[in-house]
């Protein structure tokens, strides 16, 4: 019985994206990891089969057949989109987490536009992603939130936006920005009123080519190398006031709304970590099932068999947490604690399973291009981005005790 997936759509998404991951992602994963390159061709193909860069704006509600219309008792109907996203993300990350992030990277920027954007802003965003760039590549978007001095503490952003007539003038430096070098449109977050603290932080839609928007250095990373991460600089970048997200919704459009958005993406990020862990687990399971060690089946060794059991237990537990958090979101329940639990547990599982898998394989796992070694490097980011493991525990702890412990 699958208590969280009561509709055939979930199985269909798993099957479709699982096949896509196996046939289209896996074969190119090692290459893009080695080259630290974005899978532009695959991204174009994915766009052609519906994994569009703007899907969060254009089709979020319909992709899973959801509706915000209330039922006959006036209650919101359950949605499926959070669970669909988790089911699909696990499959894509099973293929390659870096490529999965490349495929979905624009969604990080699209989400706040979908949530807070005006029709005009949405149109600007869509127009910026239409067609191809000067290299013939599909266009992508970037969400520019983190800064050199503010990683976990996103309330202390240093980037500033100063009002000047009909424009805002943005200055500041952004760090660890997915698609930061290649994006055609950015959603940049900056402080509009230093005295207002978190409430003064607002998002702006800025298109490539705007004077003062300077894509910076691409980072060389430990893992997820098929996903571009770069610095972005804003130097007296003038943005029309109509491009500030949530105009007229001052009470709800600030950073608090962004934080809620991060809460909603945590189960999806956890699902990706589950996908990495499952990939490594399946690799060593197959090895243990089919190989011998010194003339005896590997599977006959308790040392290995119990290690597999431990891996599977942790993966299953992580997946249940992920889907519980997603199920709660789909049923309009407060899932903050479970979203953090899901993300933190899955990240820990991915690291533990990939580390153990390498131990089990020995020197073989050091061969360049070996998938398990890649998964080991990919796994680490899941305990860092979208809120570190410490931030997740801080959130969980506050939910339990009411205090922000230090």
């Amino acid at each position, binding site marked *: 019985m699958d208590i969280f997936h009561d509709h055939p759509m979930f199985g269909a998404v798993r099957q479709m994206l699982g096949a896509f991951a196996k046939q289209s992602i896996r074969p190119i994963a090692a290459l893009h990891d080695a080259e630290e390159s974005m899978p532009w061709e695959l991204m174009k193909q994915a766009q052609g089969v519906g994994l569009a860069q703007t899907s969060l704006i254009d089709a979020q509600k319909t992709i899973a057949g959801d509706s915000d219309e209330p039922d006959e008792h006036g209650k919101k109907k359950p949605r499926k989109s959070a669970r669909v996203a988790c089911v699909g993300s696990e499959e894509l990350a099973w293929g390659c987490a870096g490529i999965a992030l490349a495929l979905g990277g624009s969604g990080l920027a699209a989400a706040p536009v979908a949530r807070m954007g005006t029709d005009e802003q949405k149109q600007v965003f869509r127009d910026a992603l239409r067609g191809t760039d000067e290299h013939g590549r599909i266009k992508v978007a970037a969400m520019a939130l983190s800064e050199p001095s503010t990683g976990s503490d996103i309330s202390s952003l240093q980037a500033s936006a100063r009002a000047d007539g009909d424009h805002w003038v943005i200055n500041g430096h952004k760090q660890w920005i997915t698609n930061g070098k290649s994006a055609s449109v950015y959603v940049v977050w900056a402080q509009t009123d230093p005295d207002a603290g978190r409430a003064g932080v607002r998002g702006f839609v800025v298109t490539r080519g705007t004077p003062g928007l300077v894509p910076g250095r691409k980072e060389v990373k430990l893992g997820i190398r098929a996903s571009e991460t770069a610095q972005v600089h804003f130097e007296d970048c003038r943005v029309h006031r109509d491009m500030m997200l949530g105009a007229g919704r001052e009470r709800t459009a600030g950073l608090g709304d962004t934080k809620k958005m991060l809460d909603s993406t945590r189960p999806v990020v956890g699902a990706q970590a589950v996908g990495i862990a499952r990939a490594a687990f399946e690799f060593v399971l197959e090895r243990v099932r089919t190989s011998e060690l010194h003339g005896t089946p590997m599977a006959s060794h308790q*040392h290995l068999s119990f290690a597999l059991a431990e891996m599977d237990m942790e993966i299953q537990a992580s997946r249940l947490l992920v889907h519980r958090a997603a199920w709660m979101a789909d049923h309009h329940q407060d899932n903050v604690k479970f979203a953090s639990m899901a993300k933190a547990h899955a990240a820990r599982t991915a690291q533990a399973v990939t580390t153990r898998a390498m131990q089990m394989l020995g020197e073989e796992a050091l061969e360049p291009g070996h998938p398990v070694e890649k998964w080991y490097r990919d796994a680490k980011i899941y305990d860092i981005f979208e809120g570190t493991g410490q931030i997740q525990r801080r959130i969980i702890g506050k939910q339990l005790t009411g205090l922000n412990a230090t």
Partner: protein
Amino acid sequence: MDFALDDEQQLIVSTIRRLVDKDLGAWAADADRAGAPPDRLLDVAGEIGFLVDAVPADADGLLEGDYSHATRALRGIELGRGCSALAALLECNVEPSLAVATWGSDAARAALYGALTGGKLATTASDWAGALTIDASDDGLTITGVLGPVPCLANASHLLLCAKAGDEPVLALVDTATLSLDPVVPSGWRAAAWATLRADGARVPADFVLARGVAAHRAIDQVLSWYRVSLAARAVGAAQAAMTHARGYAEERVQFGQPIGRFESLIGMRDQSETATAAARALVLQAAWELDAGMPDAANDASRARDFAGATLSRTAIDAVQIYGGYGFVNDYPVEKIMRDARAYEVLLGNEGLLRVLAQKGGE
């Protein structure tokens, strides 16, 4: 009981520490990016007695009397702080040198020591999973198969091979000219001149077979114990370096109004790593001392030391990257490299935990 270093050990530690702080640490990042050691490495190392320190003095080496694994472990800890890849290149000659001194024929001694004193390298590999097929039906050995990747092999003139011919253990010195070597650059220890060996009926003459059967079993046990203690020592050094970097970063990085190093969760994480590293250091030095003293438990403790130190480094590197956060994931800071480097300490020579369990099971 005396935990203090003697005068010679203090001198060696301070000398290596200077080498690490002045040269190795400075070369590490560039060597990692290039996937190759700097040209000066072997010259500088040779000047302070590396490479031939385990070659007997009567063969133009530096070894007079017994070799000290305790001193080597102290040296390894320092080297591990600097760069795992370069440390591997500086340490790789020891096992072949000692093995040939202990079990080698005159021909093997002449070949290996001639090469090493001429500036060549040698390295060691264990075919723990039985990847090679070895025919020992005549006086020598005929080797077929693929093994590796093996660190330092791409630059080595000789390979000390621990393997089995059927059910019979064999320890042999293999001239790498008889093998096909495919240089590779893994993601960790990138500058360590790795290669995968391919043998297609490679011949090892009888006088290069150092031991067979029961004698080889004991000899391999000893060789791998030397290697394990050396690996463990370097892992301890790498763990020390990772947490030293992380501690410094945590004292400077301010989030939520205070240095992140003041958050209890990070203090606990760091303290746990430093405690485990201190324990690993003690275990490494104990195992090394047991090797020097010829204690019966030396091999077992060498395995334990390697297992524990490898796991400690693995955990510590992951935690150090965690403390750095996003900066730890990019290669501007040294902990990203240490996390890549950490893997080799646990997977070289096979799955230590499994092999130790099997050894104890077989001994029951």
